[in-house]
């Protein structure tokens, strides 16, 4: 019993941290001291000071402001991406697992194909060829990662389909649509949500790496990966331009990883009880 409450306490603590990060994203315009797009060539590459806590970049834009706005960009992209692959992947997986047949075969072969190829390489190719933009980055990463959720949804559905209450429901004449909605989806949801929560950190980093290569968000969008790319070019004279966006990624990814892990622990201990 003691363990359970400890798990929950930790989970609440990390949830508060996550909410804090989310509110930074939401209230970025209120928190930020400057405008993220205002170039001021007179203050190009000034070191951190009281006026500019994190210094300024090549165009004299305030780094702190851009990092705060970057929270908005990065988190919006990540949440949209994770939601997209979770919903689409799970839906396809559940349908394939429940109905089986030729669609199932086709889906599994496609999922195998994706598994047999390093996803990030394909994502770089897709995002690069389609031309760098926020939408294409999300699309590229979604294409390579949705099969994970399809596999998960399918295997969970197959497991649940063997349960007695499904047989009972079939005997009672439950229609497939209702069956999926009332019996299967609620039962697989916890596992899927935990997987999605634990994926957020990874996705933030992958989005940042695509932007870093120049295949993601385009200038002048305030985005962390892109800022790191700009920082790389001035690393000799102004290391702060690349230092702080990386720290921001580190903090946010760490918090989301901890949150995902503790969510899994809470779910596990609840299921064990």
């Amino acid at each position, binding site marked *: 019993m003691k363990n359970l409450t400890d798990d929950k306490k930790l989970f609440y603590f990390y949830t508060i941290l996550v909410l804090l990060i989310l509110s930074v994203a939401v209230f970025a315009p209120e928190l930020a001291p400057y405008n993220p797009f205002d170039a001021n060539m007179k203050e190009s590459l000034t070191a951190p000071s009281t006026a500019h806590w994190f210094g300024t970049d090549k165009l004299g834009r305030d780094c702190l402001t851009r990092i705060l706005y970057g929270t908005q960009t990065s988190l919006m992209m990540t949440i949209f991406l994770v939601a997209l692959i979770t919903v689409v992947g799970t839906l396809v997986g559940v349908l394939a697992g429940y109905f089986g047949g030729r669609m199932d075969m086709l889906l599994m*072969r*496609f999922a*195998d*194909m994706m598994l*047999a*190829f*390093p*996803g*990030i*390489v*394909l*994502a*770089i*190719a*897709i995002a*690069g*060829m*389609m*031309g760098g933009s926020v939408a294409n980055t999300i699309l590229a990463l979604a294409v390579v990662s949705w099969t994970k959720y399809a596999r998960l949804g399918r295997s969970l559905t197959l497991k649940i389909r063997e349960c007695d209450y499904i047989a009972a429901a079939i005997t009672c004449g439950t229609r497939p649509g209702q069956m999926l909605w009332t019996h299967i989806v609620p039962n697989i949801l916890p596992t899927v949500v935990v997987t999605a929560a634990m994926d957020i*950190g990874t996705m933030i*980093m992958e989005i*940042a*790496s695509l932007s*870093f*290569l*120049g*295949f993601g968000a385009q200038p002048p969008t305030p985005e962390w*990966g892109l800022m*790191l790319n700009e*920082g*790389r070019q001035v*690393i*000799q004279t102004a*290391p702060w331009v*690349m*230092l702080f*966006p*990386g720290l921001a*990624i*580190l903090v946010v*990814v*760490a918090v989301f*990883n901890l949150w995902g892990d503790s969510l899994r622990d809470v779910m596990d201990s609840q299921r064990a009880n």
Partner: protein
Amino acid sequence: MPFFVGIGLCKDVFCIHKYLRLLMMKYLWIFYFKLKGMIFLKKNELLYRLAQMVITLFGVTLLTFGLTYVSPGDPVEMLLEVGDTIVPKEMIEATRHQLGLDQPFYLQYLRWLSGLAHGDMGLSYSAKMPVADRLLQGLPGTVALAGTSLIMMLLVAVPGGILSALYRNRFWDYLIRGFSFFGVSMPSFWVGLILLYVFGLKLGLCPIAGGVVTWDRMILPAATLAIAMGTKYTRQVRTAVLEELGQDYVVGARARGLPMRSILWRHVLPNACLPLITLLGLTIGWLLGGVAVIEMVFSWPGLGKMAVHAIEMRDYPLVEGFVLWVAVFYMGINLLVDCSYAYLNPHLRKGRTH
């Protein structure tokens, strides 16, 4: 031991030809038996795997080819417009016709496939040379970098993970887990930039300007990749070893009074090997993508940097070649992993199914 048997059998030790021939035969013989023991996957399984590999190759190349079709950039304009030159429309059309880019999609793909079957991967637009040659140019750099980083990673991650599992919930465990936690949360290219700044620029310990493949230039990029892979892998080693340490046979061995050292070396580590090799295969998959990003950070002349430039220049044949190379390499690794799995686990060997 077998080495001396070989020498003993040869009466005239100073006859180097006989000696070498005997040695060669002996090793061929050993190799033959090893190979026989490694006929790992059952025949059907192997066929299935090969078929799946072929399907994957088709799928991935088709997907990449499809991308060139929807891609907004025009390779011909990229090719001809150097600087501010304005190229006449007729010339663009002529070049397009010459490159076969005015043909329908499926014809282009078939043409590429038939070229591939003849060992011809096409001509790189940007490098103005055969794709195969360009790939071979970048290969040594990438292979050296990836291999070095993999070895560095294993040298740190495996002992680290074992240590962490043995001292579970004690100082070393917390320290190693703390490091690996932060490592997992850091983007690899940022780690690379930090290393570049600290060791290359501030301390001046390593040369930073890239462009050529030398050992001293490789330290920083290899370390970066090793850190990025190692943090994740240390955790996995820890989990695998912990799982084995919790098994009944460990309790049994301890009850019999076996020293912990021999339990660890003889029983726990060989058993923990199996999941670790699978995970290593997956790690190599990550490495293939990660190497592209890190090569960009350090301007390392390898395949990854080449691929990123090829994508920027809309150099389709080169991108196709790169994707094909990654697919073949990665699937080869995974096949090897599966084979080693069967080789290491006697249960899976032929005729010994349980």
